[in-house]
């Protein structure tokens, strides 16, 4: 009844091709932005910011990155964790070498280093396809992870062998390090995610995105139509790793506040992000957010939700049950809707358009 495009006429091509063609969608997205930018930092508790929103935003950025590679271009990568690590270490090196430059600049620049490494490991994708490629990207995962722990230059010869995040400011406010307030970290991260999502969405709706999708649907046919496979696949790796790198840098500097590579950027992280992309919906921007929300909040919800429902759980048992539940839920969602939460969202919207009539 409320969600209907009756009377909204498109008078030009730009209007017809808009990402949000329906007025109600535009209002909805504006509302979400207002809530995210104004209400949550003002009213949200520390718990909401630190254990829900910040992880969610970091993971959405990473899963947008992987979605560009896996969902839009059809190349499976199991090395996302390592590419995130490259971003984190690049940012760490840059900010210790040039501490006077703003940290946000370095977080974004770190993405370019990650993109470069991504292109290097993307080279085999020309000859190798499907699961063979997935296993080949595991080489990136393990090799880079080995570099993070074995090359002391990367962590500035710290005794701890970990990234130590220093105090950095933006507009006179602390945004990283122990003194930074949660709100400041959240706002920086949210701005990054918003801008980068906008960039990614435009990329995917344009010529580049269409060439990615042509390669995904059938690369030989795409080549016959004049798409340069080498350039396109490597570009996909570059863009994807850029996002992963920024996500990794943001993870270390705005969320963890320092830590060791083997914990943060290991193979499980790569798998987790692949989950998010698949559960959310391959080849869908909003799906990346759904997937990130689902997977990053699930353990928190189970941890705090089950006791609230009156199911008390001891520490170890809770952890095991979480594993079982996460596994079952993944299978459940794949069976219910193999195209991910994004498809469910679309079906819901379609139903809403017709409501209260069945068709």
């Amino acid at each position, binding site marked *: 009844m409320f969600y209907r495009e009756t009377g909204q006429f498109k008078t030009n091509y730009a209007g017809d091709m808009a990402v949000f063609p329906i007025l109600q969608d535009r209002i909805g997205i504006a509302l979400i932005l207002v809530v995210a930018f104004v209400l949550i930092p003002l009213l949200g508790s520390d718990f909401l910011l630190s254990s829900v929103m910040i992880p969610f935003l970091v993971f959405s950025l990473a899963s947008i990155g992987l979605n560009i590679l896996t969902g839009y271009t059809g190349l499976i990568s199991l090395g996302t964790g390592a590419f995130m690590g490259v971003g984190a270490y690049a940012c760490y090196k840059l900010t210790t070498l040039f501490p006077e430059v703003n940290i946000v600049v370095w977080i974004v620049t770190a993405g370019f280093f990650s993109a470069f490494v991504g292109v290097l490991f993307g080279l085999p994708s020309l000859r190798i396809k499907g699961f063979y490629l997935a296993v080949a990207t595991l080489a990136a995962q393990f090799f880079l*992870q080995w570099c993070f722990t074995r090359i002391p230059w990367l962590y500035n010869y710290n005794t701890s062998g970990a990234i130590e995040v220093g105090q950095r400011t933006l507009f006179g406010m602390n945004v990283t390090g122990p003194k930074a307030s949660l709100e400041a970290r959240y706002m920086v991260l949210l701005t990054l995610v918003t801008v980068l999502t906008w960039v990614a969405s435009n990329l995917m709706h344009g010529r580049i995105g269409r060439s990615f999708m042509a390669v995904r649907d059938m690369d030989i046919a795409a080549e016959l139509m004049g798409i340069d496979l080498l350039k396109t696949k490597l570009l996909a790796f570059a863009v994807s790793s850029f996002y992963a790198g920024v996500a990794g840098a943001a993870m270390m500097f705005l969320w963890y506040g320092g830590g060791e590579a083997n914990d943060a950027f290991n193979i499980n992280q790569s798998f987790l992000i692949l989950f998010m992309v698949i559960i959310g919906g391959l080849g869908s921007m909003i799906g990346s957010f759904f997937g990130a929300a689902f997977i990053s909040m699930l353990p928190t919800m189970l941890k705090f939700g089950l006791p609230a429902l009156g199911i008390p759980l001891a520490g170890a048992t809770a952890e*095991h049950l*979480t594993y079982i539940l996460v596994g079952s839920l993944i299978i459940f969602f794949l069976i219910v809707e193999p195209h991910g939460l994004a498809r469910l969202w679309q079906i819901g919207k379609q139903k809403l358009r017709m409501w209260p009539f069945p068709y």
Partner: protein
Amino acid sequence: MDILFKILIDPFLQMGAMPDLFVQTIWDGFVTGVLYALIALGFVLIFKASGVFNFAQGIMVVFAGLTLVGLYEMGLPAPLAVLVTLGVMFVLALAIERVVLRPLVNQPDIILFMATFGITYFLIGLGELIFGGNPKQMITDQLFLPRGAIEVKMLGGFVQFQKIDIAAAVIAVVMIVALAVFFQKTRIGRALRAVADSHKAALSVGISLNQIWVIVWFTAGIVALVTGIMWGARSDVSFGLQVIALKALPVLILGGFTSVPGAIVGGLIIGIGEKLGEFYWGPLVGGGIESWLAYCIALGFLLFRPQGLFGDKIIERI
């Protein structure tokens, strides 16, 4: 020049100077390779018959090993525990087919791949819930597996062969031969090969896909149990094994996803290459290269043969 000497010449001089050590390293690599090959074999069986890239094979190895030891600790005699574990693996295969595979039939490969991830998580949780997260000692003596080592004098030194390693190699060979006979000579084996060739054609001549999938997952479960026993006997049964199981992936791409001999040859190449690399070249870069060397060897091979050494030729049509 010094670096080139260290990379290209020095390791070979070391091999020549101490041939006994060289043989020992090769033997270690060989045994590791056999065990990688066993894990890879489980993957290949399932991939051939159902086209599922079964990520859960690693955790199935751990789960089978844990169940066996857990049942023994509960007081069952060892042979009975083996039988019950086989029963558990059968139920597992049945459940996976019914709950996961059947509703997901005809979905894209990556969805099924993800579903096996779900199975992995589920089994990790279940295994830890029932048997606890601590490493367990494999019941080697009760299963009549030998202990100790044989020292052989050769090439001016001694080479040590662990008896359990020899047993592992023998058992692996027996199992591979048994599987080959099963595949080539029996009725079910023929059906399995038919399914591997084409699902639709197999269905049309009256082969029940559901039945075949249960059988294949059960066979992979048996392979997992044997692997679990052998790995467990060499170290112990713990969830850490699952990471080692990832090593089976480069073995797979090296040998090709669809080839049983490929899994074995690939396993041996990776196992031996990895041990030699770690021992002779590892110190040059600070050691620990075992964690990624296997993947790089496999990547190198893939650049020349994208379908693996023995994989089916990839034919692409518009």
